[in-house]
């Protein structure tokens, strides 16, 4: 496979305590992803795929195990450092788009740049450029509620791309879309991968998983299969 290893998980576990009960969301996951991969993570609900994605996205910390991103060990970092990594190294695409309602398209795309502390003019230019790349240059000043689901997801993709991330994490990006806009979004993601972006996508749709080059299946917090298409 092309490129270097950019993500390495070693025997990662995640345990939640809910009252007196301990829930083992991940029981020792060992995975690695290389530059330019397009990975689908699949599994029944409750299998720990969201937890895995949260860990990959530095939104959460593993209970045990090692997580290396771009060659750096992350499990020891504090909250601010994790924020900086999310800001500079990761792109998120969510099932429900998660745009900020009071900001317009260009401002939504610019949010990661704002937290990077880039000058306003520069970030607006960059945001406009990425809006154009997802075909939204006509709608720069629209609010999210004025856009269709597909358009909103395209804004989200532009936002995920704007900070030139090491890896894009997508959580069922087509889950809330009709099939036409879903296909549209998937083809954008395909294009991104062709341009060399690393994509890790959680889905439970086999057809979508078929488009990716690698499918990781989880069950009860463990990797049960890791197949290259």
């Amino acid at each position: 496979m092309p490129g270097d290893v950019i993500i390495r998980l070693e025997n990662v576990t995640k345990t939640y305590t809910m009252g007196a009960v301990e829930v083992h969301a991940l029981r020792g996951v060992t995975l690695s992803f290389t530059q330019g991969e397009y990975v689908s993570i699949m599994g029944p609900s409750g299998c720990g795929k969201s937890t895995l994605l949260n860990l990959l996205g530095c939104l959460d910390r593993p209970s045990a195990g090692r997580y290396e991103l771009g060659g750096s060990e992350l499990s020891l970092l504090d909250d601010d450092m994790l924020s900086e990594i999310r800001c500079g190294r990761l792109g998120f695409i969510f099932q429900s788009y998660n745009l900020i309602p009071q900001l317009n398209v260009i401002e939504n795309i610019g949010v990661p740049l704002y937290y990077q502390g880039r000058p306003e003019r520069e970030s607006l230019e960059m945001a406009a450029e990425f809006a154009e790349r997802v075909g939204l240059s006509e709608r720069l000043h629209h609010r999210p509620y004025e856009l269709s689901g597909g358009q909103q997801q395209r804004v989200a993709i532009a936002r995920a791309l704007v900070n030139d991330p090491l890896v894009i994490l997508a959580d069922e990006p087509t889950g809330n879309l009709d099939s036409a806009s879903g296909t549209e979004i998937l083809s954008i993601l395909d294009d991104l991968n062709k341009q060399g972006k690393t994509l890790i996508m959680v889905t439970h749709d086999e057809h979508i998983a078929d488009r990716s080059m690698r499918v990781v299946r989880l069950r009860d917090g463990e990797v049960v299969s890791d197949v290259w298409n």
Partner: protein
Amino acid sequence: MSGTETAFNDVALRPRLSFSYLQRTIRMGFRSLWTHRLRSLLTVLGIVFGVASVIAMLAVGEGASYEAQEQIRRLGSNNIILRSLKPPEEDKVSTTRSFVVEYGLTYADIERIRATIPGVQVIVPARIKRDYVWRIARRVDCDILGTVPWYAELHDVTMQQGRYFTTSEMKRSLNVCVLDSAMAYELFPLDPAVGGSVRVGREYYRVIGVMKPETRQADEAAAQGGSNGGSTSASYQMYIPLTAAKNRFGETLLKRRSGSIEAEKVELHQATVRVSRQEDVVETAAIIADLLDRVRKKKDYEIVVPLELLRQAERTKQIFNVVLGSIAAISLLVGGIGIMNIMLATVTERTREIGIRRALGAKRHDIVVQFLIETVILSCSGGLVGVVLGVSVPLLIERFANMVTIITPWSPPLAFSISALVGTVFGIYPAVRAARMDPVEALRHE
């Protein structure tokens, strides 16, 4: 991009708090608040009214106390004012058809005071009679004060036109008079009052002067109380020489009251004693009281010491300020709690936004700054509106209610900074709560 570079060696682009970052955060805060215009407006009302009431109440209070002090000061802080008072027991007797009540200060009293007390400077006796004053067909109900020429100087009376009467006019008991400006206008609406003449009963008086309107209040205050045999004082006043009053009206004043005739014999209605040193005023008043009591069976006079009134007014003002301060503190506290309440609700409502921002790289302190700035914007704009309102309300009161108001120069900045402080203090907890949220939980929030 190569995978071997570390994940975080070039991400720390930003200083922790830069000017442009703050500027943009403030703009964003305005935007968020603008999205919920009505809510923001209602939230800040507490602060608005808190700040406005502090400034307005302070201004009105200051104005009222200034006015009171000014009135008292016009009575003269070195003065002691003696007034004849109808003894209460005799009121009952006067219900019979006709009866002459004899009471009050006498010329002998004045002599006694002058002879006994060394520090006393001037004594101004005054007689007050209430009657109609005519000019052709125009009639005015007024208090006629028989007094001495130096009354003007002692009571700080300034003239609008003409002059006050002189010693020689008093000695010759001439029928001359000084009118207050409102009365002059009432009687002489078109032609100048000075040089004209007015009629009281059968006597005519030549008008030689008109007083400035603001000096009247002091005399009004002086004439109030029991000085006119218990009846309320008229709103107009006319001044004539004491000797003229004595000669024309006599010492017995007749009053017709619903069916009964009442006569009072009063030599002097009022006298003012000026003491040379202010420290001696209170003591001298006590000596005078002692002196007067020695020759009377009943207490038929009262002693007013403006200095004591002044001190009392100052004490009242201090108490008033304390009360006002606590009201202001409470109202701002309530306003602050209101803001905090809404901000907590806002934080809960925007949990998802917080999650998104955290996922996109916001640090905890970014979230704190964001929400804190929103709260501060709320309270500061509330404070600003409050200041504008608080400054304009006293002006309106002055314009329409004819009251003196004084906006103390330090009250608007003080009220405003307190409101800003309230915003900061009450904004911290909601902001910290927002920042403490777990990003994963926040993103899952519906």
